[in-house]
């Protein structure tokens, strides 16, 4: 998506990204970015919280209007969880002793399935491009 923003901007259409994966967007480098420090899934505000959504979209419009240089990041002044502000950060894509074997097994199963599908596809569709 960030690569797309760069390309659309280069084509002459100003862009703004609203997103929650700060590192991915900022490493790619986009013209304007509204960072919403939430779990992935609701970058434009919590579900059904209309006022919050309105204000986050408003920040994106502000950024379109007022950013004076590329790579402008504005962080929305919102918090996902007041009681446990960091729990969601730790739980996402968690890797630890409690699930290491489970993840290894899931990976092995996925590779097996991919190989099975690849072999079936190459035997039925010889001209298919990789």
């Amino acid at each position: 998506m960030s690569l797309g923003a760069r390309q659309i901007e280069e084509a002459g259409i100003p862009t703004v990204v609203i997103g929650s994966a700060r590192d991915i967007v900022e490493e790619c480098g986009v013209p304007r970015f509204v960072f919403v420090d939430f779990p992935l899934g609701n970058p434009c505000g919590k579900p059904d919280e209309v006022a919050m959504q309105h204000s986050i979209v408003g920040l994106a419009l502000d950024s379109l209007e007022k950013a004076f240089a590329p790579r402008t990041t504005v962080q929305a002044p919102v918090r996902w969880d007041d009681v446990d502000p960091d729990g969601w950060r730790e739980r996402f894509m968690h890797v630890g002793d409690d699930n290491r074997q489970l993840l290894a097994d899931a990976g092995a199963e996925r590779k097996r399935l991919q190989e099975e599908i690849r072999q079936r596809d190459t035997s039925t569709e010889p001209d298919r491009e990789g």
Partner: protein
Amino acid sequence: MTETKRTHRSHVSYIDKSREFYAAHGYEQPYHWAAHDDAPFTALPKPLFECKVGVVTTSYFLPDDFVYRVPSDLPRLPYVASRHDTARLDNQYLSWAKDETHTRDRESYLPLARLDEYVTQGRIGAVSDRFYGLPTQFSHRQTQRRDTPRVLEWMKEDEVDVALLVPL
């Protein structure tokens, strides 16, 4: 909001987390994320209150008979759709924090009604009648050579002046 004290940077590094997560699955070759020092910049062509906004999403539609087996099965194609045709957007196979939240409120990731409020207020000129699907791709080249050029064509057909891009 109350103050919080921290000894470490709080923002999640998805680049680090996903590398470790997939390594734990046995995928040892890490993904190579796009990185640039610079970024392009285009000034607004006219006042924002005269601009038509086009919205780009990573959400997509699944065929009725779709059966998921592995990620490469997913229909990662760019698309354009009517803004009145969002009910069948399906996020179940996208990567997001499914244990923490949900995407049943479309406005939390595709804020067409929120943008309409700004049209009513006179802050922006209009919202495009169509929105644009730019799928998350493993391949940078697919995004750059195939998908974004298609999205740009559709935006030009719709006379979009500014773009709001929202990755889930």
